[in-house]
């Protein structure tokens, strides 16, 4: 195989406690730590492992968003991506527009595999990979926990509600990653220095001719309903009594 394209979305770090803005216009992101979407980090790690075992020659990291996304792309380059592309967009890019942008990048780069996280931990949509596969007219293997290649086919184990499903997909294909696919490597300091010299191309989203108009409008944001404060019991007898009280023990 030749090239692997990996998507890296810049999101609020998964350790940050999310707060909704008082005016309901969104969640607080000012001064909040931003990171690579964890599922995308797994996608990049998998791409690097595929390349390291000789099954691919180049790994290209792609991000869509404001100029600050260069930080996440530099981290991706430090992890081992060969080069990076930032598609600069001022506004939020919804999954359909993101899929359209990836399709344009595919047209330029002709990758054999596009590896994306199964969802982004900000909007939790879980759509971009599937939409891209549809627009591209190619296979999708979502929620992957194992990927193997032979003769132009990927055999992908998928984490589904019923267990583990294995499907074969002809390449090129879109694969989206689940948590247990791998554990991403840590970035070492010398690699961060080296990453600064790796190529990072910036393209304006407008130059790709993709319709960026939002599909939906967000009316308001609010915190989730709180559960009422519970009680602590001292022992099993107390637990039994509390359950009986709620009519939960037959």
């Amino acid at each position, binding site marked *: 195989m030749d090239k692997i394209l990996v998507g890296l979305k810049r999101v609020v770090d998964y350790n940050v406690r999310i707060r909704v803005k008082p005016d309901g216009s969104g*969640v607080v992101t000012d001064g909040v730590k931003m990171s690579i979407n964890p599922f995308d980090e797994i996608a990049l790690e998998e791409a690097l492992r595929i390349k390291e075992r000789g099954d691919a020659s180049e790994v290209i990291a792609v991000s869509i968003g404001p100029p600050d996304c260069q930080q996440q792309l530099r981290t991706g380059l430090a992890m081992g991506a060969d080069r990076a592309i930032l598609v600069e967009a001022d506004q939020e890019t919804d999954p359909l527009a993101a899929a359209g942008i990836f399709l344009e990048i595919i047209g330029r780069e002709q990758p054999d595999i596009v590896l994306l996280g199964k*969802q982004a931990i900000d909007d939790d949509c879980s759509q971009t990979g599937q939409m891209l596969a549809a627009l591209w007219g190619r296979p*999708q293997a979502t929620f992957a926990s194992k990927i193997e290649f032979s003769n132009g086919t990927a055999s992908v184990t998928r984490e589904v509600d019923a267990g*583990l499903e294995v*499907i074969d997909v002809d390449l090129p294909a879109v694969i989206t990653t689940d948590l247990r696919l791998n554990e991403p490597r840590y970035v070492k300091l010398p690699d961060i220095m080296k990453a600064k010299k790796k190529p990072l191309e910036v393209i304006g989203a407008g130059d790709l001719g993709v319709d960026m108009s939002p*599909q939906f409008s967000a*009316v308001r944001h609010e*915190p989730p309903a709180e*559960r009422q404060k519970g009680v602590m019991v001292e022992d099993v007898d107390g637990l039994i009594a*509390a359950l009986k009280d709620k009519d939960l023990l037959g």
Partner: protein
Amino acid sequence: MSKVLIIAEHDGTHLNQSTAKCLNCAQSIDDAGADVVTLGNQCAAVAEQAAALTGVSKVLTIERAENEHAVAAVMAPQIAALADDYDYVLAPSTTFGKDLAPRVAALLGVGQLSDVMSVEGPREFKRPIYAGNAVVTVQVPEGKKIVATVRAASFRPVAPSGGQAEIASVQISVELPGHTRFVELLSGSSGDRPDLQTAKVVISGGRGVGSEENFEILYRLADKMNAAVGASRAAVDAGFVPNEMQVGQTGKIISPDLYIAFGISGAIQHLTGIKDAGTIVAVNKDGEAPIFEIADIGLVGDLFDVIPELEKHL
């Protein structure tokens, strides 16, 4: 003609309960009833189960050898062709629906709403973001088809009987791709235990359970309570139990009447999966564990002492 089309989830024999939950959501959109489409290969039993659900106008069956297994790339063009006659296409927010619905939406050239948790108006919906730590109300502009996945934990299933909808076989003449092939489904057997997503009682274990062998005491308790067994990500990652038992943001989102967590600290991603439970019970050695913040009943103690004692009372 009903405006809402629901994509049925099934295993060839049984209709998944998530379909009945989608119907409840559909009724909030349009109480005139919804059509249900079943794609499969010789799955008449599934179509009959769908026809018996309350609120179904018509069941459409698309029977083709290619539909033997649910492969999104194969199903999506058939549903997209059928969607011409509908304003809404709904699928459950299970791995089945999450895989399929975006592919359908992209073929139709529209966005997709994930995890609809309530219907605020015909074109206005609430959905969770940031692992359920915020809820956003979204509006879909007029004139666009709405493709959405329905968050099962937010809707009660409609009654599974009483309906007598017509069943109609449909021929869709679209070319289906051969580039994606089902190979096999590997699943850990849960025996005769109830299904995690529909059980009224769920017993769950975390890292604190310690090993695959130790999970046996949870299975034993579950069998006494006619409960399903779930697990935290930590327990799955450690290899104590198979992946299909994982409850949480990336596992299953469940809403049993009673959820009992043993040795689960309560990472935000796990809590996301259980917030809709009727009553949450937490048993943990660590009194500071975050799970106690959302538990209705908390007990600080060793699960290996608590479970045997609990069993004696049952």
